[in-house]
């Protein structure tokens, strides 16, 4: 059975607070902070994009796993902010980790869940012995239209996971996975459009809550497990409020989701969100503990995973940079003007 051999995550150092954004738009920061359960978000520097974030996370994952990158047989990068429309982010990452050239690679897009879709693909490829190791990455420099509610949450970050079949190398076994998918127009960005559009409140119940609930219930049905059989749970986190509500609805308690709830301090990293949450949970988890992960991508779909932590996590832990430590050190707060400049939103011609 396939499992996680190693992981790494990367979040840019720059931050902008809810207060700073609300100041510009004349909104009440306290009502936004309490309504979205978010304090601040990460912002990419002008020299960072989804490829640099993916590469940094991938390098950490290779180091954490202890494997030779040349043994990686597939690299998938999930993002909705690939730097090129045509030319893969995955090939840039493969060169940045010196993975060699005997591999397959591709970019994936399914709003915020393409990284977990990559994980499912690699489960099949490693279980069938098609490849020894594969890497999936979720990374984004997500866009929020100035003045839109998304501007308070759309942030940057990513995480990379190496999947393999060798049990003694696994820090966690991927017990099983299921998905729930439908054509739901809750959030979209047309080709060439600078910013995404969304259906406002429609993104909630028919989008996020329906798909996460259905996928998680399917996982319960498939495994015979219930919420209290898991030590931890990670749900996609477009803001700090939705994952708490959906966890409660599915029978989970706050203590099960708190380690992986990162959005309140870095914002919604889109394709990176549920994977960074999983990385933060693995930072804390012990052998034998079980983790449920359910991602969500608008458009819409959810991938749900049952994961059991293995012994190798303890030995490999010394090579990992913990998510909570990474996101709290070297933070640099920027104002709204510099935020617009670094996001390329100031047009000079």
């Amino acid at each position, binding site marked *: 059975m396939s499992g996680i051999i190693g992981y790494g995550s990367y979040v840019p*150092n*720059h931050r902008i607070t809810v207060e700073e954004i609300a100041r510009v738009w004349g909104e009440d920061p306290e009502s936004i902070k309490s309504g979205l359960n978010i304090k601040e978000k990460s912002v990419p*520097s*002008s*020299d*960072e*994009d989804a*490829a*640099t974030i993916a*590469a*940094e996370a991938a*390098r950490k994952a290779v180091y954490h796993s202890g494997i030779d990158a040349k043994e990686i047989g597939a690299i998938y990068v999930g993002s909705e902010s690939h*730097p*090129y429309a045509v030319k893969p982010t995955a090939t*840039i990452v493969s*060169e*940045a980790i*010196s993975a060699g050239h005997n591999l397959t690679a591709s970019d994936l897009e399914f709003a915020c869940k393409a990284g977990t879709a990559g994980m499912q693909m690699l489960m099949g490829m490693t279980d069938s012995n098609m490849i020894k190791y594969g890497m999936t990455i979720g990374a984004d420099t997500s866009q929020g239209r100035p003045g839109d509610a998304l501007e308070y949450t759309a942030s940057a970050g990513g995480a990379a996971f190496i999947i393999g079949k060798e049990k003694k190398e696994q820090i966690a076994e991927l017990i099983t996975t299921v998905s729930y998918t439908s054509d739901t127009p809750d959030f979209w960005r047309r080709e060439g459009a600078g910013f995404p559009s969304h259906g406002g409140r429609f993104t909630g119940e028919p989008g996020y809550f329906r798909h996460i609930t259905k996928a998680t219930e399917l996982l319960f049905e498939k495994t015979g497990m219930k919420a209290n059989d898991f030590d931890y749970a990670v749900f996609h986190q477009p803001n700090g409020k939705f994952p708490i509500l959906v966890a409660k609805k599915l029978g989970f308690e706050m203590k099960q989701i708190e380690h992986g709830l990162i959005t309140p301090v870095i914002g919604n990293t889109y394709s990176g969100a549920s994977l960074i949450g999983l990385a933060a949970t693995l930072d804390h988890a012990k052998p034998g503990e079980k983790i449920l992960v359910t991602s969500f991508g608008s458009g819409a779909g959810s991938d749900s995973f049952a994961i059991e932590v293995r012994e190798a996590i303890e030995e490999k832990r010394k090579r990992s940079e913990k998510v909570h430590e990474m996101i709290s050190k*070297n933070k*640099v707060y920027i104002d709204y003007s510099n935020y617009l*400049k670094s996001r390329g939103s100031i047009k000079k011609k």
Partner: protein
Amino acid sequence: MERSSASLWRKINSRYNMVGNECTNCGKTYFPPRLICKDCGRKSKMQSKKFNGAGEVYSYSKIHVPTEAFKDSAPYTVGIIKLDEGPLVEGHIIDDGKGVNIGMRVKSAFRRMDVDGEEGLIYYHFKFVPE
């Protein structure tokens, strides 16, 4: 002005992964790579070496009058880094407002260097960030 794809492609190893070389005859390391060791000459035995990018600031300068490619980044800092593994390497140093000083520990990071206009290639390159 757009550069050729070939020039980017040829330098990917050095730009992305700081791949230089080492003379196994005397142990001297080089970045960028050299065809022959400047100390060993004909006795050179050069082999590729990937540097880990950790080192300290040997010298630096803050650029206030940039070239066209970096006009939106000014002021920015470039410097010479003394790598732990030997060579002196020139590169951009990310200064997030906390300042750069000689002897400061740095490590390499994977960043955009510049882009060819709105539609051209994106040039990725190592830069140095505080360790």
